[in-house]
């Protein structure tokens, strides 16, 4: 039997409108022990406002369906009303746990349409910041995943470590989240003095803390009981459902865009792709924990190999003139004014760019009509697509395990609903 037939015959997805569900609830049939309940949208384990409609038989989950859209604010429509320079302020608010990745994929798309080369230092700063962001995002996952499964202490530890990274982000970008740091043409500002020491401090503390997490969770029998063999998915199913990131890698397929289709300078750094074996909740947890270690390796190499030079392109079409020039030159002042009021024009065309975010393939499909604002900006959000695996993973399992599985998908609802 093919994967497609298997997915179809399993009947894991609840395709029923609320009205139908209501009608069914009013019919009393003593032989039918199934019932339909809602989990969420206000539930501590649903990571925001995710509602899951579940059909239960006793404690066993039969069919289910994630109901989303509670955070939908039309960000793709908003993007059509913002210039390319303002664009990152909008997209950075989608995946609020890993905002730099959305800025990156958007900027790469704009640069592809402009056919713009960015300086080496900008590329390496982007890579450094993104890997730090991957670490902070995975630490957030460890915190919430621990809390969801009863290791409440983990919430404090994960948050504490994440805070170290965010403190560095604040120093570099001025903000802890929603940085608007990666922009078309480069990055917003150069790294501050003493950035090497700041990162070294983080890299020094973390390995020891990660080992503590291993003691607290990885090797612990209760943790293993709750995660091993729960929410299993195969490679074929994950691919058919479009799942990427740790979910796909947990099935044993080493698919990582940083290796498969290198962008930035990922072909110049040394790192390993972490893969799982069984495609269960434990594998997804272990992959993220170990990806923090791999990201730390990349960050170390970034510190060593960071080139000197400008941090944004010298192309005056997209980069405003330096502050000092504005005081001397009328033309520079006009130029500065034009870039920030009218924006720069991007040649007509369409492009799709993709980066590996902590959650999977984060893509940006951009259509330009030659004006200063995009004609269409679409973000391919990994969480949105990954959520489709949920009904298949919790089908036939216990309700308590459903919590573990939702947590292991690591959905960020801001990105799901956009």
């Amino acid at each position, binding site marked *: 039997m093919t994967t497609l037939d298997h997915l179809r015959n399993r009947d894991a997805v609840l395709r029923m409108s609320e009205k139908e569900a209501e009608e069914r609830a009013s019919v009393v049939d003593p032989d039918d022990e199934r019932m339909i309940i809602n989990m969420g949208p206000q539930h501590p384990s649903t990571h925001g406002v995710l509602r899951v409609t579940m059909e239960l038989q006793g404690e066993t989950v039969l069919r289910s369906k994630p109901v989303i*859209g509670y955070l939908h604010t039309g960000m793709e429509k908003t993007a059509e009303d913002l210039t390319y320079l303002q664009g990152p302020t909008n997209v950075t608010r989608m995946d609020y746990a890993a905002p730099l990745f959305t800025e990156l994929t958007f900027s790469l798309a704009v640069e592809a349409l402009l056919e713009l080369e960015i300086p080496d230092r900008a590329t390496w700063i982007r890579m450094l910041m993104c890997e730090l962001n991957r670490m902070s995002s995975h630490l957030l996952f460890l915190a919430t995943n621990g809390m969801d499964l009863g290791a409440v202490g983990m919430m404090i530890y994960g948050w504490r470590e994440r805070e170290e990274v965010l403190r560095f982000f604040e120093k570099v970008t001025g903000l802890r989240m929603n940085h608007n740091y990666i922009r078309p043409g480069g990055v917003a500002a150069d790294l501050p003095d003493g950035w090497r020491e700041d990162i070294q401090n983080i890299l020094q503390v973390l390995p020891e803390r990660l080992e503590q997490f291993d003691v607290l969770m990885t090797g612990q029998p209760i943790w293993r009981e709750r995660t091993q063999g729960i929410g299993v998915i195969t490679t074929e199913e994950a691919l058919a459902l479009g799942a990427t990131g740790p979910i796909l890698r947990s099935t044993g397929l080493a698919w990582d865009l940083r290796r498969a289709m290198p962008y930035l300078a990922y072909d110049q750094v040394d790192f390993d792709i972490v893969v799982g074996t069984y495609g269960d909740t434990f594998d997804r947890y272990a992959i993220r924990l170990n990806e923090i270690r791999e990201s730390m390796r990349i960050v170390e190499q970034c510190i060593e190999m960071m080139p000197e030079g400008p941090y944004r392109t010298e192309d005056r079409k997209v980069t405003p003139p330096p502050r000092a020039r504005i005081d001397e030159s009328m033309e520079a002042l006009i130029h500065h004014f034009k870039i920030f009021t009218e924006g720069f024009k991007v040649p*007509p065309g369409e492009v*799709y760019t993709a980066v590996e975010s902590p959650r999977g*393939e984060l893509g940006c499909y951009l259509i330009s009509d*030659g004006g200063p604002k995009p004609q269409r900006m*679409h973000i391919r959000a990994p969480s949105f*697509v990954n959520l489709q695996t949920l009904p298949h993973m919790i089908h036939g399992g216990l309700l308590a395990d459903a919590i573990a599985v939702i947590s292991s998908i690591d959905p960020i609802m801001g990105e799901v609903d956009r």
Partner: protein
Amino acid sequence: MTDSSPPVDEETESDPAAIPEAEVETLHGSAVTYSNDQTVLHPNKDGYHDLVEALKDEGYGVCIDLCGADYLGNETRSLPLTVLPERFELVANLLDVHDSRRIRIRVQIAETDPSVTTITDIHPGAEAMEREAQDMFGLVFEGHPDPSPILLPDDWQGHPLRKDFSMGRIPVQFKAVDGR
């Protein structure tokens, strides 16, 4: 497509058959263009489903992205000569994880008949993305297993990402809660 040449001249629009097929590169019977080093296929609406199926056999086993686009008022779009421009486009990005390659499909969809065959029978992962395109552009996916709104409320009127749907047109009213 970075060249700024006008999309289709008048003659083509009236009679696409007049262009000799040999001048346009094709794959599985669909015109091929290259946009920023990315391969783009332009099937017609009826051949779209078969094309996706043929590409799946060729290795493009993942439908990584699917979205709609509205070209109302855009005069700068460039298309191969054999393709008639329509207001809407359905854009699907397919991925081959074994050979690390991508391909993009752009289907022209007329405003008067915004229906197209679903590809959820080939790529079940397209389900949520097709529902989103249906919400945002009013595209109709024939044979879709669950064509209910995904991001918009069930009673929402209109399709927000259409170009003639202006921002702030509908004041958002939160549903009143009884007894408060």
